[in-house]
């Protein structure tokens, strides 16, 4: 039986890799140390695949088709999507490996378990959503990915409860197959930030710390009951915390927040978290 052996959640601000030096040195060190610890734990977990959950910033989808959830089943993914973005976020453009078979399994499992995600068999390219955190978490791109995209960029968004339940469904899907034994789940996005809006560059530390307390509590009800209005108070970019909530559903255990720093220079409340209940630390 396959198993979700660990879950991680991180911000994916372009500044983390694109202009790390603009942050206060102490904050940069705290975040990069936390990413290093997360990377160490992922390697120790020896995953056979990573289910990577994020939003995408109109890099692939648009208002012709904007799915609430989409599961990708390709065997490779281009990222960053353009040479310009590669330069902007300081990540070399390359192909990331995919585990299309596991993606297909999760997609089919979803359809028979009350979820109806979009199917993406190919053509999905990455932006900062995956490229920024994976530069720290899997710098050699050695782990095959199953990318899952949820809508965090335009209302109406899937509810927090629906995102948590989707994560639970992913866990059950992993457990319902035997081929891929050890699966790590990563959620990326948030915390508070504003994109394209007057508030850009500010951080809602109160929201961020409350969110951290809830994600560390391990109590599903505390994260499932977020309203869109509550999240909106932390910016249009804060809606990406749905990816953390889905990751929480996938592991079903409390997260340990390895670092949180409000970093206006990166335009986000920036955090790295891990839930590795089975790991000998």
């Amino acid at each position: 039986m396959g198993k979700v052996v660990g879950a991680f959640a991180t911000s994916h601000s372009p500044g983390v890799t694109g202009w790390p030096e603009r942050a206060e040195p102490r904050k940069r060190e705290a975040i990069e140390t936390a990413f290093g610890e997360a990377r160490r734990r992922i390697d120790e977990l020896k995953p056979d695949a990573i289910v990577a959950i994020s939003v995408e910033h109109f890099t692939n989808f648009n208002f012709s088709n904007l799915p609430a959830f989409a599961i990708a089943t390709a065997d490779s993914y281009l990222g960053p999507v353009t040479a310009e973005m590669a330069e902007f976020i300081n990540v070399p453009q390359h192909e990331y490996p995919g585990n299309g078979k596991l993606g297909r399994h999760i997609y089919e499992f979803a359809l028979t378990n009350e979820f109806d995600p979009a199917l993406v068999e190919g053509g999905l390219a990455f932006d900062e959503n995956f490229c920024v955190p994976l530069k720290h978490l899997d710098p050699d791109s050695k782990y095959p990915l199953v990318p899952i995209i949820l809508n965090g960029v335009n209302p109406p968004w899937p509810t927090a409860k629906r995102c948590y339940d989707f994560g639970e469904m992913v866990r059950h899907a992993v457990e319902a197959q035997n081929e891929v034994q050890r699966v790590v789940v990563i959620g990326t996005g948030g915390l508070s930030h504003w994109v394209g809006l007057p508030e850009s560059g500010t951080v809602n530390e109160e929201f961020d710390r409350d969110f951290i307390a809830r994600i560390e509590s391990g109590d599903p009800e505390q994260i499932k009951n977020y309203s869109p209005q509550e999240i909106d108070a932390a910016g249009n970019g804060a809606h990406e915390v749905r990816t953390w909530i889905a990751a929480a559903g996938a592991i079903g255990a409390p997260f340990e927040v390895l670092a949180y720093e409000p970093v206006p220079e990166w335009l986000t409340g920036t955090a790295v978290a891990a839930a590795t209940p089975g790991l000998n630390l």
Partner: protein
Amino acid sequence: MYSLHKLLWEIRKDSELAKRFRSQTSEVLNEYGLEGDSRQAMLTLDFKKLHEIGANPYLIYFCALQLQVGRESYYEQIREGKS
């Protein structure tokens, strides 16, 4: 709103369209059937107005960047309005 969003997204994805938009703005707006407030806002690149009429902020911002508007200029305009 769909036509406006379609134009914003396609400018962001297609540098040739962005170039053409800058040199033949009215023609491109005709092709996308933009009229009224959205047409006026795109004619003048009034990003604050685009936001006020309900365009998605990500798409406004990304389109602005593709049209060679600097990040600082964009945010100055979105905060203070077009001068």
